[in-house]
């Protein structure tokens, strides 16, 4: 009797938590298996992320040309790519909402963001990674597990990149 009362109280108190786990825009959980999806590049050619995920660390950023935070984040991404680009696959997935391939190409010419650009016209990766906002970064470790998620113009992913590449020294050029 007492046990069931305690459990009832517990379940009532944690009901809100379960709602959080079904959040509409919460992003993929750290520790989850990274979804392997196919996304087109800017020429419309399919790129299977399975060629990287589970084989080497992957840095994914979901971005758009109109995203100010993505632009703010660019120097940090460029520095990370310069430091870890030989060990980590850097991919920028353009969310394609309010975008066109021409607009994205023009932007890439001037901004050179430091990643290979994919163009997700179907929103496949947006749904698979539960992308809550542009500037959303997901780092996947060599085993294919999500090791980091975050968003914003400044992010703290250096430590995670160091861990997933099993390199404890801070490469030159990183903050």
């Amino acid at each position: 009797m007492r046990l069931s009362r305690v459990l009832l109280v517990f379940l009532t108190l944690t009901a809100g938590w379960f709602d959080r786990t079904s959040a509409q825009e919460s992003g993929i959980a750290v520790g989850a298996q990274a979804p392997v999806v196919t996304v087109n590049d800017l020429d419309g050619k399919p790129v299977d992320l399975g060629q990287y995920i589970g084989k080497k660390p992957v840095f994914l950023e979901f971005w758009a040309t109109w995203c100010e935070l993505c632009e703010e984040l660019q120097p940090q991404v460029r520095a990370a790519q310069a430091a870890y680009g030989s060990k980590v696959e850097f991919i920028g997935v353009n969310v394609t909402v309010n975008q066109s391939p021409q607009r994205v190409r023009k932007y890439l010419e001037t901004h050179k963001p430091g990643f290979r650009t994919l163009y997700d016209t179907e929103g496949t990766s947006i749904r698979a990674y539960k992308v809550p906002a542009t500037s959303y970064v997901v780092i996947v470790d060599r085993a294919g597990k999500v090791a980091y998620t975050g968003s914003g113009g400044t992010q703290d992913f250096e430590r995670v990149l160091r861990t997933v590449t099993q390199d404890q020294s801070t490469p030159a050029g990183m903050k």
Partner: protein
Amino acid sequence: MMRVSGLFLALTACLAAASPMTAQDRTEPVRARVQGGPDIDQRAPDFSLPWANRDGVGPIESPYQLASDRGKTVVVAFYPRDFTKGCTAQMRTFAEQYDSLFGPNVVLVAISSDSVQTHGRFAASLGLPFRLLSDPDQRVSKQYASKDSEGYNRRTVYVVGPDGRVRFRNMSFNALDPKDYSELRGAVRKAARGS
């Protein structure tokens, strides 16, 4: 009692371990599950709310009333909060692709719990060509099953046909998913045709 406490602690520990805190958790409102709200073919509940647009706050004596647009297709979009990342992306897309998504004879209104003053600043910052309605006590959001448990709205979209009935609804609209926008475009066209 020891066994009960142990069980409680173990369950709490499991939940804590399975709950990674990310930057997103700290910056974005959290939403609850969907329940109720007017379904397809049901009459859309009427409401009247104060509004603002890019030109400023609307007259207090002239709130927006859904019933006043009977005979037109009306898109009612609930969203969490002005000036947040997802909402900025959604409203900017609605504004920049207005003709393609909605067309000239369709009315779009977007609803959050922000004040009309905040709405005015948000609409002006993005040049939004449609009204933002203020629902501070979330009375309307609740009627449309778009109120979450923490004082924000869920991101949902309803298309109300010229006859005042719901013709389409997306109860988990994703501001970054191109598929959600193309489905909305198709639903608006279908509702406007009256089919």
